[in-house]
Each structure stands twice: as C-alpha cells, then as structure tokens.
C-alpha cells in the first residue's frame, strides 16, 4: 500500500524547493561588526583553514534548507530554529577532509573517508560542513541524510518485480530522489548529463538513450513503482558520467554501517526480517561506494545509533561495519571525530551566551566541561535548562 498522504507531502516539498530560490528568507540578525573569537566572518567553507578551528560560521538560510536538508540532526535543527540562524562550528576533522578534497588527484580511484567517533561527538555535523564545502566547490552531491530512516524506520515495503527475492523501499527511494534533485538542481540541467543507455521499466515504459538525467529522476518520482529501480539506474549513470569527466561527485552517507547490520527493522508480511543485502537500494549505494571509479570522493560515517541498541558496544569502524563491510570499504581514510577541545568548548559556551541561551555564572565552563566530559551532545543537553 502506498500512503498517498506521505507522497503528497513529498511532492509539496519538491515544489517548495523548486521555488525556494525566489523566496526571500526571513529577517536575519546581522552579525556584530567587531570580530568575536568564537565566530568567524568567513562564511565560505572554501576558505576555511585550521586557523578557524573552534569558530562558528553562519550557513545562509536558503542554502541550509536545500543542501543540508535532513543532514542536520533533529535536535540541532530545533536549536537553529531557536537561535534564529544556522551556525556550524569549524572543527578539525571537517577541515582535514576539506583540505584532502582540495588536494586529491581525481584521476585516481575514488578515496573513501570514514568518520567515526563516540555517540554525540559531531559526526553528522562534520559531514554537514563537508557537504556545504562540496556544494560550494561544484560537486554533484549524492547525499543520504540518515540511513537509519531506511533500515530502521521504512515507510513501506514491496517485493521487487525484476529481481527474485529482493525488496523495494519505493516511498523512501522516491523521497531520496526528490532530495537528490533539489540538492543538485543547478547541476542537473547541464546538457552533458545524459543517460548512456536505454532503461526499460516495463513493456510500455522506457527512458531512451541520451535523455537527460532529470527525465530519469522524474520518472522515478512520478512512477513510484519504479523508484527503487530508478535509483539503481541513476547510480549506474552517475558512475558512467563521472568516469567520463562530465561531473565531479561527492557521495555522502550518514550511518553507513546500517548497510551491513543484519537485524534491520524492515519486515516482510510474516514479520520476517529482511536483511539489508536483500534491499535494492543497498545495491545502488554499495556500488557508489566502491573505488572502481574516479573523479569522485566518498565520505561516510559509521554510527552506533544506526544499529539496534543492544549492539552499541564499540564506536570503531571494524566492529560497526563487520568483516564484510570493512572489506567493502578497505582501503579507506579513517577520520576520528573527537570530543570538544577546551578551546572549542569555551567557544561553544560563548556562542550559547551570545545567543542568550544560557546565563553566565562563575566557573560555568569548568563545571559543564567536567559534567559533559567535553561531549558536544551532552553539553547541549546540559545547557537546555540553564
């Protein structure tokens, strides 16, 4: 059963995004002319260096809604609404990745970056920063905001028509296609992005060779039944086009280890669990994270929260990915996202105070630092009632 309401809301978002650029964003508070140490005026992620580490920069509201849609954790999104602006802290892992992306040789096979760290240390926000950079640097973004939504909270399940024993998450796939389209609106209209072969969906429906990618995506969105197939076809096309040098691609997947965790919450009719390797979407994104293509970069996070709670035992990639997943990603560049440094914590508290979120009392920073153990999420939680 397709829930028409959900799909309608999807389309509505699609429409909104299309017209978003014309909408003027709400009145933004102007930043103080004098420079604060916790805030940088350098709002362009292309120019961020290690000197900016620990400082906040502002993401324009319209960019945030389009490019970081779903990329910010929900609790952070509520904060941005309260603070009336979206600010991200420049941190070392993201600057490191950005520096790497700047210096990469794109004729070589794609490099995989794996972000890992304890719960609440800021992996997703690091990725959001990288994503913002990639968007500015003209990458085509293939961004899965949170894989847990598919593996642990799927909208609907249907068995695949073309593949024996496989299952489709068509509603989620269509939602992702809408997201992909809105993120890359400006790039997809380029004339070079054309399908390299004909895609046949059924007896009567097919997408001919040399039609634009937009047509392919629109077909997936309009014909929900073929959304998962369309994602597969899109992944294949993107690989071909990127290899041919028509575009630069950044694949960003949050909670990547969910692809290798057998106990999903995707259930068949008799409450039988569908493992991730029997879901068509998995295939598309696993093929995108292989290193058999160039002109691309891949950033994934491995996160404990993407798997069931009883298995939150370690935050290291080898445990979270398992043998199979580790071998799939190997060789990769591990990027450890650590807790706040004392400087970052002070800057975070300064930011909260400037936004009038917390009131100052003597030795506030020291007390909260020891209570939160410098963990960004815990710090945020501790500050909610101050």
């Amino acid at each position, binding site marked *: 059963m397709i829930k028409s309401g959900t799909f309608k809301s999807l389309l509505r978002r699609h429409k909104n995004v299309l017209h978003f650029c014309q909408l003027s964003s709400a009145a933004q*508070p102007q930043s103080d002319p004098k420079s604060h140490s916790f805030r940088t005026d350098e709002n362009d992620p292309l120019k961020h260096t290690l000197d900016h580490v620990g400082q906040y920069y502002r993401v324009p509201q319209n960019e945030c809604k389009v490019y970081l849609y779903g990329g910010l954790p929900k609790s952070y999104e*509520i904060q941005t609404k*309260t*603070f*009336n602006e979206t600010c991200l802290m420049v941190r070392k892992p993201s600057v490191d990745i950005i520096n790497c992306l700047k210096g990469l040789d794109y004729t070589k096979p794609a490099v995989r970056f794996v972000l890992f760290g304890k719960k609440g240390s800021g992996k997703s926000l690091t990725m959001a920063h990288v994503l913002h950079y990639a968007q500015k640097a003209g990458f085509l973004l293939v961004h899965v905001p949170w894989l847990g939504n598919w593996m642990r909270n799927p909208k609907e399940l249907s068995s695949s028509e073309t593949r024996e024993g496989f299952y489709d998450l068509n509603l989620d796939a269509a939602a992702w296609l809408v997201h992909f389209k809105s993120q890359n609106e400006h790039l997809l209209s380029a004339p070079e992005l054309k399908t390299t072969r004909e895609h046949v969906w059924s007896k009567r429906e097919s997408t001919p060779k040399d039609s634009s990618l937009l047509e392919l995506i629109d077909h997936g969105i309009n014909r929900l039944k073929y959304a998962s197939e369309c994602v597969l076809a899109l992944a294949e096309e993107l690989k071909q086009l990127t290899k041919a040098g028509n575009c630069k691609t950044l694949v960003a997947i949050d909670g990547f280890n969910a692809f290798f965790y057998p106990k999903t919450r995707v259930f068949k009719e008799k409450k039988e669990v569908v493992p991730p390797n029997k879901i068509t979407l998995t295939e598309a994104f696993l093929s995108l994270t292989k290193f058999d293509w160039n002109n691309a970069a891949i950033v994934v996070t491995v996160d404990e929260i993407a798997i069931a709670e009883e298995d939150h035992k370690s935050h290291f990639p080898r445990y979270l990915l398992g043998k199979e997943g580790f071998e799939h990603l190997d060789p990769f560049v591990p990027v450890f996202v650590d807790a706040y440094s004392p400087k970052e914590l002070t800057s975070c508290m300064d930011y909260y105070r400037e*936004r*009038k*979120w917390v*009131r100052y*009392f*003597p*030795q*506030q920073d020291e*007390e909260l630092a020891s209570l939160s153990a410098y963990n960004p999420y815990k710090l945020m939680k501790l500050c*909610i*009632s*101050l």
Partner: protein
Amino acid sequence: MAAIKLFSNNLKIIKGSVPTLSLIIQKNGMSQYPSYYIQPVYKKEVQEELAKTGEAQKLTHMPTRAALNNQTCSHTQDDLVNLFTNYVMKDGLKPLARGLIEQAFENIKRIQLEKYHKCQDPEIKAQIELDPRAIFHKAVENCKPIMNLTPIKRGGVRYQVPVPITPKRSQFMSMKWLIAASKEKDKNVRFHYQLALELIDAANNKGRVVKRKQDLHKQCEANRAYAHYRWS
C-alpha cells in the same frame, strides 16, 4: 543564619544535661542521625562567610549530617526548584520529575527567545525575561495566596471561614496550583509544555493560576462576616 542557630541549639543540648533517650527519639522520628547532628553547609559562599566570622572553627568538630545527593555547591542548584521537583514527583521517580522540570525550563527558554527574536522594538526587547529560573521564582511569588478558607462547624452548619495562612503554606499552595493547572490540559499536550506556559503566564500576572488566587481572595472577602467563627 539558620545553620548557626541550629548549631547553638545543638551546643546547648550537648553542654547542658545529657538529653534523655526518649527526647532524642521523639525529636528524631525516623532519621538515622541523632538529633544533635547539625545540618551540612554545602554552599561555598556560606562556607566562606562562616570562615570569615570564625564560626567555621566552632563547627569543625560538631557531628554533621552527610549532604543529600541533591545538595551541591553548583550555581545551577536552586532550593525552590528542588522543592518544586519534589512536589511534581510521583512514586519516587525523581529522575523523571527532574527531567520534566528541565524540559519545562527548556520550553520557557524557547518560547521567550522566539518572542525576543520576533520583537522589533529594542526597548521592549530588553524587557523580555529570558532566565527560566527568574520566571519560575516570579511565577511562584505571583501565585501565593494570603488567606484561605477553612470549614468550621457552628450550630450544625459548616461555614467557610477565611483564615490567614503561613508563608510556607502559601508557597505550597502556589506550587500545588501551578502543577494542578499544568495537568489540566489537552490530551496531546505534554505536561512540561503546559507547565512552561503556566509559568510564563503567572510570571506576567495573568493566566489561570493567578485567577484562581484572585478568586480565593474574593471568596474570602465575601465571607468576611464569618471571620469571628475562628474564635467563638
């Protein structure tokens, strides 16, 4: 200074005749501490003050109770908020009660900040109170009644007689009303959200709880003719 007063009382007990066992038991109730144990001084400022005046020297060798686990020297600690948490608590589920209060404070902050950012006029903007604790204290203060009605039977008829109440009773009633008002809500509104709304309203001297207080005062005023039943 309560601690010093208690200390001198205790000193009297020790220096004077040895208290009889029955006295200790009577005074002590269920406590594991004998009655001559003094309350701990856990706030840094109070400790410093005691050290300055030299009282600390006297307290050094007094038998002292251990501090409770919610008595810390942190600036986030607030006696009135702790008391309120205990009033909210049911079945001894303190972490739950504490969480509700914290969430209520979070909601207060979010609601007030939204007002703050919406406001264009800088003068009004500066007046918006953003501190949830200040709002809480103001709300409790604004809801305190000064009189209460108590039923007294005279000649087979129960009269609602206005009586003055102690500050402690008045504070308790204020907090009780705030909690009761927050529980009276739509099914799909959370308690902590409603509590936040009630606190903000009460701090601005509006809302249901303040009205309840005023209604009680009015009733007391109307029943003033019965006041003499308190004595006769």
